């Protein structure tokens, strides 16, 4: 009880601090210098119509690289933790052991058919969101998450489906590597690490524009999709029956 009270007291003190922040806050009337620069210069510098995408992929590309790495790390650690579960056994023999467990009850007709129908559409939608990231709301992260939701659906309809672990891991690593290499290309060919001007900026507002942004976004999308899928796959294996 005392502990609850103490926690309440602390949380309320935090609340007081937050309220001070709130009181001191007044919304900007004008864009600040940084935002103003982005609003006026993005189009000419990066050729991207979606300013947020330009910021994510180019201006703050280093953050995004870190972000992708966070996912990579999370996926790798989830894999490490869950494969360590079997102790000395290697992951392959463990999944064989799982194979011999009694099968799941059959999935419903609706889910099975729905999956067959929807997965290609979902994948296509994901791809669309990814490649249009520099023009419209969306991008690699959003698209990658959509791709992974297709994977989730596949897993739901057949929990024992083995979706090439190896393939996912190759896609994951390859796209990550490609991201880094593109960044280095920027360093070598253009103005700095992750500069998108290594490719021509193209016509503003068209699909093939904004230099390397779409290319990077594709790799990000692939990587995010692969990361999420690998996490899902690993977590699926933990389900107990």
């Amino acid at each position, binding site marked *: 009880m005392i*502990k609850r009270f*103490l*926690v309440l007291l*602390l*949380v309320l*003190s*935090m609340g007081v*601090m*937050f309220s*001070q*922040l709130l009181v*001191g*806050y007044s919304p*900007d009337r004008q864009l*600040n*210098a*940084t*935002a103003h*620069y*982005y609003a006026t*210069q993005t189009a000419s*510098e990066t050729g991207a119509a979606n300013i947020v995408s330009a910021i994510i992929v*180019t*201006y*703050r*590309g*280093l*953050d995004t*690289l*870190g*972000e992708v*790495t*966070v996912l*990579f*790390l*999370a996926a*790798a*650690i989830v*894999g*490490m*933790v869950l494969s360590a579960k079997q102790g000395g056994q290697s992951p392959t023999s463990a999944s064989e052991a799982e194979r011999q467990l009694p099968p799941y009850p059959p999935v419903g007709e609706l889910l099975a058919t729905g999956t067959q129908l929807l997965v290609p559409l979902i994948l296509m939608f994901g791809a669309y969101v990814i490649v249009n990231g520099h023009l419209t709301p969306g991008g690699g992260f959003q698209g990658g998450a959509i791709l992974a939701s297709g994977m989730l659906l596949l897993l739901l309809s057949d929990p024992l489906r083995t979706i090439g672990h190896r393939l996912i*891991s*190759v896609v994951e*690593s*390859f796209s*990550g*590597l490609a991201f*880094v*290499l593109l*960044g*280095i290309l*920027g*360093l070598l060919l*253009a*103005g*700095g*690490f*992750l*500069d998108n*001007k290594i490719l021509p900026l193209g016509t503003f507002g068209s699909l093939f524009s904004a230099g390397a942004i779409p290319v990077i976004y594709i790799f990000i999308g692939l990587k995010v999709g692969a990361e999420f899928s690998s996490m899902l796959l690993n977590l699926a294996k933990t389900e107990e029956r």
Partner: protein
Amino acid sequence: MVSALSFIALPLGTAFTLGLLPQGMQRVNYLLTLLALALLSLIAASWLLAFAAGEIATQQIFTAGTTPPFSINLQIGMAEAAGLLLLNLTGLLSVIYLRDTLHQQGARAMAVLLIFIMALSGIVLTRDLFNLFVFIELTTIATGGLILLSHDKRALGAGFKYLVATQIISITLLIGTIFLYHDSGTLNIDGMAAGGLITGESLALFLVLIALILELKPFPANGWALDIYESAHPAFSAILSAAAATAALFAVDRLLLVGSNSWLPLATAVGVVSFVGANLLALVQRNDRRILGYSSIAQMGLLLVVVGQRDILGESYLFIAGGILLAHAIAKAGLFWLSGIIVARDLSDWRALQRNPLYIFAFATFIAMLVGLPPFPGFYAKWDLVHLLAAHDRIALLLALLFASLLEALFLFRWFGYVIKGEANPEGIICARNKLGVIAAATVAAWGVAYLWGEMALQGNLLYSIPLLAALAFLLLEWLAVPYKNVLAISVLLGWFVVNYADYNPLQLIFAVIILVGGPLILLSSFYARGRRIGFYPATMLMFAGMAQLIVAKSSFDFFAAWEILTIGSYYLILRGKASEPHAISYIIFSLGGAFLMLTGFALAAAGDLNFLLSNLSEVAPAVAPWVFLLLAIGFMTKTAAIGVHIWLPGAHAEAESDVSPMLSGILLKAGLFGLMVLMLEMGRQSLYGVDLTHVMLWIGALSALLGNLMAAFQEDAKRLLAYSSIAQLGYALFGLALMNHLGWLLALMFVINHFIYKSMLFLSVGGVAKRTGTRLMYRMGGLITLMPLSFIAVLIGIIAVSGVPPLSGFGGRWIFYNAIMTAEYRLPLIIIFLAGPIAFLYLFRLIHTIFLGQLKDEHRQLREAPFWMILPQMIFVACLMVFALVPGLALKRVDHYLLQYFPEGGLSWDGLTITSHFGYWSPISIMVIVGVIFMTLFAWLLFVNRRAQKVKQFNIVFAAERPFRPETTHFAWNFFAPYRKALGFLTEPLVTRFWDAIGEALHSLAELLRRFYNGNGQTYSVHLLAFVVITFLLARGVS
């Protein structure tokens, strides 16, 4: 220069490549990881070299082809390059160390490790606040993964606690970041600092800052971190402690730029609480890794203080911060790596290191480095830090830091004591070649940075000092047998004396003779030892090196360094004794405590001058001069074991080896006297609040003499008796100095010489007897006169000299003494010191009577004389005493003249062999003759009277049919002076011992109480964390 971006791109690229390789290629994966980290270390080294050579200036690295604040930029300068080298090297060595674990865990673990190092490098490099957040989160998640490398099942729970804590930190950080952006319109840290839109009042800034400080795991909001240190794989803990903490420190340092230094006091306050608190709690720990965790937190606290004080540190900032940081990182990583080869977790399990002296050497290096002993970087850094703090009147902070350093030294040296002493479990250590290689690399790095910091230091490189090098050279000669090493040691000492003979002034010469000629004389007795006697010679030579440097030191820095060196050497010598561990620890703590007071005194005197000359002590500003005098005097008196700070001495001298005790008593104690002489010559009389400090010293000297003698009288242990007698003798010397007149000083110097000769001799003879009889308790001996006649002669001559009766040199001392006090105006301390005289007879009589006279014990009938090598120096000492008794002018005449320049009044006149003062004259030769005649007459008469006496055999006694309760109580010599004890025993109540024990007890109880605070519950830890934020906020607001 390879672009600094490679610190991010290269490890990331490698990590992603590892995933591309087919499974089962662990060897290739491992090699790739190794290669990447090695390459990064090389790149960092090349940057560092370029900066050090001044070829390049600090560089900005832009990304995305745009300038900040619109894109993220990195910055690399000297400090960053050094940080990166540290991070990547730690990573590289840890990967080598983790070879087997990584092979087992596979590519994923290697990738996570690479990314961890990458993220730490990112924290060091980035100048963008949000980017900093991303890298911090990366380290958090990677930590979550790497904790799992541990085989310890408990690590899982610890990891979860850690994740919970970091969630709260990252919430705080993000909220602060976005509001900082809103207020300043930029995410660039330099932009925020330059823009001036963020004031010190900014709450958002506080949130970001406190979040970054929390990444340093400050006390007490750090339970989660301690659990990780305890349970994670030691190699990971090494990275966490050495590398991750370093990176976090860079982040804090950078962010403090914002708001124009207004949060520096906060950093200082949190730092000092951490430094004191963590060191205090470490006192009661027994788990090695947890104690290292506490020590890491403490060191981070210290560094936070340095960061918080950077406004006054000026140009020395990087030198100080870098010195402490590197010392911490290398030592801590080294110790964590060492802990990985030790099987069990208790501190005493580290005894397994005894298997190989090289392990002990590595361990000792790391401990010395952590404590900040010379010649390691922490020593230079602390010296500068303390001086600058003192120069800016931040005395309270300085004292808090020194107090905490003392606590740190206490638990570290206690640990060292456990390791050196006691039986080792041969199975307690598992050596793999890769792990040993890593530990060796850390040891080499430790000495490397020691050299480097010496090169950079204003005061000159300690490693160029020849005596120190000679002492270290003995480490390399450890494989030789004792006789060779002994010959070498003796010739080195004598050689050094001969080389420097011409440069000594008469005062220095007296000490030089005692150290460099007296030392070898005592070392003669070391020939009796067999085997290699590992550890003895480096320690002895270290002590002598310190002493030799001490007497010629010109600047306060040299003096202090020499003081520390002789302390380390003597500490190790004391520790070698049989049951000496508790005494060694109390010795080192009192010595370091005294040294810290000295350091404060020097710092106050120097007023910011980092290379202060001792000769300038006379020109210290009058406002601080008495304080300087007080601090330095107390510091020196801990070494002379003046009453009040004497409790380390009896045990240390009694338990030490037979040839070590004379060195400690005869030579080591003189260091304190020398210091006092230098101090009093330079500063003269000082009074504080109207009290004449020399008068206080007079009292201390008198009380030391009285109580020392009294306590000596009640000892059963012969060596303890001599030890207490040393306290008393140095009390006389102190008294003489404090008289502040010519004769007083002559008296003190007379005591310096006399005490060296007879105390060394007595310790040697008693040591020889103890060696033969196997005990030091006097009531277990008796009647040894016939079996050990030479030892008897030495003791007889010794006690005649000590007691100050004619004809030996002790009488000369007394004669000068009486002359000296007649000229002084203080009466009461005078009476006390008179009283002390007769008491000396009591214990001296007992010494010779109980050991050599009376009945021979049955079990001692087969005893032989002490070993030749122990008798030889005694006989030489006897000869010296005789010569000195006959011609005291040999040494004293020159000093007498020398003293005239300081005390022109009251010199003696040296007329041939007769010495004349105001009150009378002293002719040593005639005294010798007269006393000789009286003695011979009495002796002849005794023989005549006793010619028919019947010899009584031991068992020729009829006992009553009574069974003694304790056998020794039937011995006449047991509790010999019981009546005196009844009368005067209240004076020997161990009040001082009780006082210090109570302090120690209180500290330990406090620590025991406070540690309950860490109840192991992850939620409670989070509450601590939140409470820390809130309370810090309230305090900060309350203050400003």
